[in-house]
């Protein structure tokens, strides 16, 4: 009786665990709304003029105003472009990569000399808190964050009052891709570039073998009438183990790399929680479990076939 109910129980437990963790993650990602008020002066240059606006007197001639406005607009565009830290070369494989970014003074040039670029190792999966922001000023990397001053009552609800402050950090940040960029030399960039590409190619070959080659071989064996074969069972188990190893590597490798660079990356940058990382690999784990079960079914089929073949 218990054996007959086992798949239903397993399915119910799996679904319950999935929805529990999914719900838990969703609740953590959606904080409740809190009224805030953050003050920053328009003329404040502390954040590289991010919040600045053009201050012009009423007596300024229009042509002069237009010239100043265009110039100011161009400078703001260049600053925002620099802050975005968009890559102009390099490679990225999942959570790790190497990037080169044009220096500020070379942003609108076609100069591709080594000296026109800065070089970085990029680590993905990072983000800054909602009120914080990254900016570059005079070649230094900085984070602007909110310092909360007080809580005041306004129309019967509390309002958190704060202001922006800044601090210098040793790394650059690409907020669009969520990548922390650790400065390295050109020589290190070349070495990492070569190493990453070699690793990627080797890894791709192994993955193609496990996730394409082996299933294809199983299908070929089935088409030749050798469905319940010991080789097929072995290949299916290998695919399952390969998926499991891939999922575990995908979970653990970012943590290991982060640990290695922990002294470089400030605590302002946050990553997904361990359980969120596990949840991202849910379908890979599910695939591994599915292949294990298929291998078990094939093993049972093999035994039944053996009995059939050896029935006189």
């Amino acid at each position, binding site marked *: 009786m218990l054996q007959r109910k086992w798949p239903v129980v397993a399915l119910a437990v799996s679904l319950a665990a999935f929805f529990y963790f999914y719900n838990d993650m969703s609740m953590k990602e959606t904080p409740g709304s809190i009224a805030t008020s953050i003050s920053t002066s328009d003329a404040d240059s502390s954040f590289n003029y991010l919040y600045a606006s053009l201050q012009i007197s009423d007596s300024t001639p229009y042509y002069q105003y237009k010239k100043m406005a265009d110039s100011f607009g161009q400078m703001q565009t260049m600053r925002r472009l620099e802050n975005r830290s968009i890559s102009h070369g390099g490679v990225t494989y999942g959570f790790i990569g190497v990037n080169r970014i044009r220096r500020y003074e070379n942003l609108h040039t076609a100069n591709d000399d080594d000296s026109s670029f800065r070089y970085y190792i990029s680590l993905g999966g990072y983000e800054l808190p909602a009120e914080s922001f990254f900016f570059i000023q005079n070649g230094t990397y900085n984070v602007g964050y909110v310092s909360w001053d007080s809580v005041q009552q306004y129309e019967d609800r509390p309002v958190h009052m704060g202001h922006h402050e800044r601090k210098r950090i040793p790394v650059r940040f690409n907020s669009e891709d969520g990548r922390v960029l650790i400065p390295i030399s050109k020589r290190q960039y070349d070495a990492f570039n070569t190493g990453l590409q070699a690793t990627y190619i080797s890894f791709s070959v192994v993955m193609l073998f496990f996730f394409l080659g082996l299933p294809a071989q199983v299908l070929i064996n089935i088409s030749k009438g050798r469905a319940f074969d010991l080789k097929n069972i072995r290949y299916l188990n290998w695919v399952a183990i390969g998926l499991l190893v891939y999922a575990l590597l995908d979970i653990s490798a970012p943590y290991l790399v982060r640990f290695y660079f922990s002294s470089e990356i400030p605590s302002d940058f946050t990553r997904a929680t361990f359980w969120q990382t596990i949840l991202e690999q849910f379908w890979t784990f599910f695939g591994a479990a599915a292949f294990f079960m298929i291998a078990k079914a094939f093993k049972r089929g093999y035994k039944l076939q*053996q009995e059939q073949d*050896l*029935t*006189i």
Partner: protein
Amino acid sequence: MPIVVNLDVMLARRKMSLTELSERVGITIANLSILKSGKAKAIRFSTLEEICKILDCQPGDILEYMERGDYNRLMRKAG
């Protein structure tokens, strides 16, 4: 498995070869060899009926149950 097939004993008693038995029963020599060597997992009643008819014997004359220990000793001796 602890069921021993004494087919060779009955063949010797009836002075019949495996080839002749296979022709008369309608089973290949390969399958009869599997049966004789104890590698068979199961035997159909229809096959047992034919063998008993040809060899003029009872199923108990061909099939014998042994204790596991005695069976293992027998297999070691035969191997």
